Structure formats: structure tokens, C-alpha cells
């Protein structure tokens, strides 16, 4: 059997303002699937929707429409306290999002995994001073080697950030203004016009 690791199926998230005169302030759209273990690099400006996408994948945020399937299970049908057995979101801030609890536990499914299959690293702090980067990259590779799916999300502002992405990632997703562009390798990624536009001189230095 081959269940895709991650299916993001016509996913849409809208944030709006105003009760009567609804104005959409931000919308994110995503439609892609990842069939096998990989390390996926995700880049994009601040506020482009990277973290929102991660929250939708881990089920801590509700989509406006569409669905997310992790290892064949709809993440929003899995028990709140077991969603991180499927997909886990590592973020720097200690802000804890509570789930929108809309259904009692008995109406939901248990997770089919003990240890998460999808690992989402949100802006890991890469600091060249202390040497921890190497151990972090090894850990991404270890998870990948065990047959898991790893996302590394970064807003590069130093040439070495791009070098890290090129060194460790196998495919890429570029996010801007709530829409996604996928690239199969680093060269194809940096050929994309909006990516060149976004990275500017970093591409030439890296």
C-alpha cells in the first residue's frame, strides 16, 4: 500500500475583517501532495503564510475549506491530543495555540502513529557562533533516513541560510502572499522570477 505522506487538498484559509462588510485581509491557498520521505525547504517573506500552513498541517488551525491528509488520516478528524503523533510543529515562540475544540473525543479518531511522521521546523535558529547547526542538520537527515517527512521553514537573510537550504533540502516550496510555488531542486527554485525577486543579491552570493 502506498499512502502519500501528506496531501494538502484544495486547502484554503481566509482571515477577514468586519461583520457586515466582510473584507478578506489574508488568504492562503495550497494544493499539493508529497508521496515519500523527503526534506522540504520552505521559504518566503514574513507574513506570507508559512506558519499558517504549518498550523493547518498539524491541525492546530482550521481551514476555511479543503482538507489535510497526513499518512492517510484527515488531521482534523484526529483527536486533539494525538494530532502531534502524526505531524509535529516545532516553533521558537512559547505561545501555545489551543485547539478549536468542536467535537467530543469519542467522535474522533486515534492517531495511527507513536512517533510523528511529519516534522515541521519553523524558523529553527541557525547561529554560526555556537556550532549547533551541524547537529540540527544531522537530525533532519536522521529523521529523513528513518523514512519521515521533514519541512524546514526559513526566511533567509544571510548567504549561509541559503547554503544550508541547498545542502540539506531535496525539494522546495516558495510561499508569497498566501500562494505556493513548488520546485524540484535548488537551481529550479532560484530560477523562478518571484524567488529571485525575493532573495535579491543573496542568490548571487550563496
Amino acid at each position: 500500500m502506498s499512502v502519500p505522506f501528506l496531501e494538502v487538498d484544495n486547502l484554503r484559509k481566509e482571515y477577514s475583517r468586519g461583520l457586515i462588510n466582510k473584507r478578506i485581509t489574508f488568504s492562503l491557498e495550497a494544493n499539493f501532495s508529497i508521496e515519500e520521505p523527503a526534506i522540504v525547504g520552505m521559504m518566503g517573506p514574513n507574513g506570507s503564510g508559512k506558519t499558517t500552513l504549518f498550523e493547518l498541517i498539524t491541525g492546530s488551525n482550521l481551514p476555511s475549506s479543503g482538507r489535510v491528509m497526513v499518512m492517510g488520516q484527515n488531521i482534523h478528524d484526529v483527536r486533539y491530543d494525538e494530532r502531534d503523533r502524526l505531524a509535529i510543529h516545532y516553533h521558537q515562540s512559547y505561545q501555545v495555540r489551543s485547539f478549536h475544540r468542536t467535537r467530543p473525543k469519542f467522535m474522533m479518531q486515534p492517531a495511527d502513529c507513536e512517533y510523528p511522521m511529519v516534522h515541521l521546523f519553523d524558523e529553527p535558529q541557525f547561529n554560526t557562533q555556537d556550532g549547533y547547526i551541524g547537529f540540527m542538520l544531522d537530525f533532519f537527515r536522521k529523521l529523513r533516513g528513518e523514512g519521515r517527512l521533514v519541512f524546514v521553514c526559513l526566511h533567509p537573510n544571510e548567504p549561509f541560510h541559503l547554503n544550508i537550504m541547498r545542502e540539506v533540502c531535496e525539494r522546495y516550496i516558495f510561499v508569497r502572499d498566501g500562494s505556493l510555488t513548488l520546485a524540484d531542486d535548488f537551481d529550479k527554485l532560484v530560477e523562478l522570477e518571484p524567488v529571485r525577486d525575493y532573495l535579491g543579491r543573496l542568490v548571487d552570493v550563496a
Partner: protein
Amino acid sequence: MALFEAQHLHKRFGDRVVLEEINLSFEAGQLSGIMGPNGAGKTTCFNVLTGRYKPDRGKVLFDGQDITGMTPRAIARKGISRSFQIMNLFDDFSVIENVLIAVPQVRDRGFNMTRRVAADVAAMDKAAVVLEQVGLQDKAYENAGSLPYGDRRALEIGVALATEPRLLFLDEPTSGLGIDATARLSELILELKHAYTIVIIEHDMKFLFGLADNIAVIHWGQVITRGTPDELRANKWVQSSNLGKLA
């Protein structure tokens, strides 16, 4: 068999996973390090190992015995001693009194200021030996509160040693110490190495690289890698960091 083992530890606070699938083992007579950046989960891990928090899943074994879920007091009684990142000393008492309180024969009959502990020759001898081990023999009758920071740290280790531990845990021993005091602490710990089984939690990579027999690196609440200092130092990112230039 390892003296101390943690198997498949998992801990969450509310919706947040703080420890995930932690496996550790500490061999008798070795100095083991647990290293990680700030906020990586080191202290939480330490608190689970020493009984302050109960893990949601997994086991902690000491000398083959399951000690998971035992109170910190019961674990301490088994011979596991810990120091704290924040110092715990009786500032108004002398250095030797701080050590005396921890000596088992004094502790067992209850500490009482109206009784002259100093008259207990055996306990005094024990305390004197400990002070010599940590290099504070000349300051035995000074107030603990008047000691410089580095000496306070040494005294804290002395208090832990006075309990005759089979395993000594040190939580961030370099925190708050300057370069000189850190170097002195490093020498002190080298003296104790192999005479005791020691586990040090520390974010200062250089400090641990100079002391530990083996190191587990914790980040995101997980053991992300482990090895001897030489193995870890071989990593090219460590080489190109400030640390690589220093080492």
C-alpha cells in the same frame, strides 16, 4: 548494565510536547554530558530524571530498579544527588555547617541548631574531607553568603558530595560564572571525575567538550545526536563555529 537509564521518555505540558522519545544511559564512573541550546528542554529533562516531574510515558531506571514516578526525596535517598541552576545554600551559616547538614549521620537524626554538631567528630571529619575535595578548606568558617560566586558553586557541589551520592547531577554549573571561575570549576570537576558518576547539564559546549566522556545533544525536547567530544567536534559546523576556532 548502565547505572542510570532513561527509556522512551515523553512529557507534555498541555498541548505542547516538551520531551519526545528521550533515551539516555549513564555508565558508572563516567562523566556524561547533556548539552543543548537555551530552551531546548534540558532542565525539563533533568527534572524528569530526578523525579521533580513525572513523565507521561517511559521509564527511569537506577541500578536496574524502576524509579519512575518516585518523589524527589525518595530518589535522593537512593543516592542520587542534584545541584540546581539557582543556588540553594544557607547564607547565614558557615561553609562547614552547610556541608555538615548534608552529611548522612547528621541528616538522619535531624538537624538541630541547639545541639552542637561540631562536637560530632566523625561528621566534622567527613565535612572537612569534602571541603578539601572542593578546595574550600581555608574558608570553612566564613559565612556562605559572603563567598564569591565561584566558591558558592564549589560549596554547592560540596553539599551534594557530602550526601555520599552514587550519582551526581549538576544543572548548568557554569551559569553566572565568569571565565576564571569557569576554568576553576572545570579543574574541580576533573578532580572528581571517575571517583564519582557525574551527569552535567550545560549549554556551554566548550566546557563540556573538555570534561565529558560522552555527550547527548538535546534540542526540541529530543536527543538529536550523541557521541564523544571528539566525535561531536568533528562536525564541520562545529569546526567553523567560534568553538572550532577556539578548540
